[in-house]
């Protein structure tokens, strides 16, 4: 399979701090790839290296087949986590400007900018200044600026943050559209439900180290099954469920993992006696659970390593 992006033990240090530690990763062409990880885990640094804003201290990068990402800058689209626009510029101008910076010629960029804005519901805003727009609209304008030059690889850093549900759906559709057009999309997110819904591949990075990477089913494979429970009643009783290893109680929904050898049927019986069960599911864990557990395990490992030393 051809790769849109390949990292081989890429490391980036800032002074004594290692932001990305020997990261190896392959992103196949035409897929949607989710980057997961806590704040400060190293996602943004990884993305910045892909965008050749930073240069790795060691390891090799291959972006769209080129070892130097700077050479293919014009074929990449990038929406950074911190989104900003020139407040005084008109929306059509700024979208076109981003296009021109990516090497589009003047008239094509101007036309395309107007067309995109109109297509995504901002037709009335072409001649309005960016400062007059709401946050969601501003973000939309920025995304359009990211994709105006029809990049082969699009990297979106936290594209869903700060968006209302309607705009989240719009963003999701936009990402899916790009996949349909054969582009590769990488996005980072804290919203596990988004990753789970639209990603073909996910990877997780924690404290600068890669924890796992692969398709969603690969990532979930071999992990403990868990109970997905929708319920009514006092959730505090769930903690007393016999044989429960971990309980993630969300108030109306809970994810429960049992100790090795415990029977989920028994648990169901006990649950019926204590709360109103609305839905009971015994299946592979959510990405949320995997994420939280990975963080826990990694921290324990680090703590243990610290003790040994």
């Amino acid at each position, binding site marked *: 399979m051809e790769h849109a992006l390949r990292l081989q033990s890429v490391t980036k240090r800032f002074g004594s701090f290692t932001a990305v530690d020997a990261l190896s990763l392959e992103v196949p062409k035409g897929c949607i790839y989710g980057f997961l990880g806590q704040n400060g885990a190293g996602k943004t640094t990884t993305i910045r290296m892909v965008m050749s804003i930073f240069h790795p201290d060691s390891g090799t990068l291959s972006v769209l087949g080129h070892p130097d990402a700077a050479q293919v800058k014009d074929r990449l689209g990038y929406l950074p986590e911190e989104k900003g626009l020139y407040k*005084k510029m008109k929306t059509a101008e700024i979208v076109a*400007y981003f296009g021109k*910076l990516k090497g589009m010629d003047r008239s094509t960029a101007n036309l395309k900018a107007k067309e995109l804005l109109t297509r995504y519901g901002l037709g009335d805003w072409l001649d309005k200044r960016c400062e007059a727009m709401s946050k969601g609209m501003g973000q939309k304008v920025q995304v359009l600026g990211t994709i105006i030059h029809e990049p082969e690889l699009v990297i979106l850093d936290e594209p869903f943050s700060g968006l209302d549900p309607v705009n989240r759906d719009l963003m999701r559709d936009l990402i899916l559209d790009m996949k349909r057009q054969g582009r590769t999309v990488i996005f980072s997110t804290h919203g596990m439900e988004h990753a789970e819904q639209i990603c073909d591949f996910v990877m997780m990075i924690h404290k600068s180290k890669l924890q796992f990477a692969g398709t969603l089913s690969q990532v979930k494979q071999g992990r403990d099954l868990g109970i997905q429970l929708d319920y009514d009643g006092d959730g505090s009783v769930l903690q007393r469920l016999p044989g429960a290893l971990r309980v993630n109680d969300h108030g109306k929904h809970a994810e429960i993992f049992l100790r090795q050898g415990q029977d989920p049927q028994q648990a169901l019986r006990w649950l019926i006696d204590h709360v109103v069960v609305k839905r009971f599911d015994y299946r592979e864990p959510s990405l949320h659970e995997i994420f939280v557990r990975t963080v826990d395990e990694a921290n324990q490992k680090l703590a243990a390593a610290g003790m040994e030393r």
Partner: protein
Amino acid sequence: MANKTLLVAQREYLENIRTKTFWIGILAFPILIAISLGAGYVLAKLKQTQAYAVVDLGNSSADGGAASGLAERIEKQARSGDMAALARLLASDQELPGAMAEIAKDLGDQLAPLRGKAGDDPAVAPPEVPDDVREKLFERLQKLPADSLQRLMQEQQAMATAKRYQRRSLAELGLAELPPTEQQQRLGQMVQKGELFAYFVVGAAPNERLDDFRYVSNNFTDNSLRDWYGTAATKVVQRLRLAEAKIPASVAQRLREEVAFRAEKADKDGKTSVVTAADKGSGFAPMAFVYLLWIAVITAAQMLLTNTVEEKSNRIIEVLLSSVSPGQLMQGKIWGIGATGLTLTISWAVCALLGIWVAEWLLPGTDLTALAAAKDPLYLASFVVYFLLGYLLYAAILVGLGSVTNSLKEAQNLLQPVFVLLIIPLVSMMFIVQEPNGLVAKVLSYVPLFTPFIMMNRAGGPPEVYEYVITTLLLLASVWLAFRFAGKIFRVGVLMTGNPPKLKEILGWLRQS
């Protein structure tokens, strides 16, 4: 690749040009200057008239001696000034200094009625000088070289302001019949109430004693009325005393004459010519240019700093960096805002030229040769070159500083040392204009941060050609170096958030290739 730098520069330029504040800035500066120039003139015009009264102690004494009518004589002297005396002098047979002889020749026949009667006898009133002669004299005096007849011109100015002073006669005030002590009491009350600005008491025996001449006013700061009236009184009293001593007016004139060295300049053949107002102007013109240059460089560099910090704080920088390299971005910014600054300075220069042109047209009589230096293409060209080089140097420094800070406030703190340095060319401005080839001027010329200002300042000298060459090369080298360093700092600093880096860290970035 350079294409992207151009795109960035173009955007910066257009964005600045399109703001209202930019155009306000372009207009505000010349308007401010015009206002400050006009304000003095208008304020002088707006000054209220000052009413005064005079008590002549001599008039009340019955003897009617030499002092009789003293107040009236002083009044006449004050109102007509020395212009009449000068006319009489020109009409006399005395030998006159060059410039004045020429005026006498020009006026020719008009002086005839005064000729020959330039009486030596003070008892005989001198012939009246016709108003048109006085006015012609006036005109000619204005065109004389600055130094000559300076004293006369000052007096002439005092006469022009004399319209402000309004005499109220005692009869008009209804005090004529009262004894002097009572007159003074009543006048004092009027001064206190503000009905009169002041009153004078003219002594009874000016030939013997002057200690009973008094000026009563409750305004202690504006002494112009007192000086104006006092000067006239002095002249009248002098004339009285000369008459008493039987000294002819011509002798007195000779005795009073002051030595005024005529200022001349020498050319390479040793020939001399009179220093004109234009010469003086060209000596001082560099100061105006330095000041303008200073403002232009600071304005543009500040603009750049604000822009960098704003762009960094609104996070747009990362999007840009995914399309252009940090170097392209930095240079695009510097050039774009440099073009903005250049537009600003050229607009100012055009305003200045227009202003001079309008002034020449509005006030045809006035001598604006002093401003001629402003139209010298060499000055203008060197101004543009020094602006560009100076701006580039400061721009590189400020963009480097701006890129490591997160807010304008932080940036301002870092800027302070730069501004302290920038004060040096301003405080040394006057000094360097006076000594354009002095040691201080020469040494400061070789400090690249000051080169544009100091060399502009020395233009009146002018400096040797080799100095121009070496200082410009030094300046170019520092611009190049500053760009390199700023590029390295910018590359790292522009994406940093949190605390500004320590100096040690910045030095570390510089060492990285």
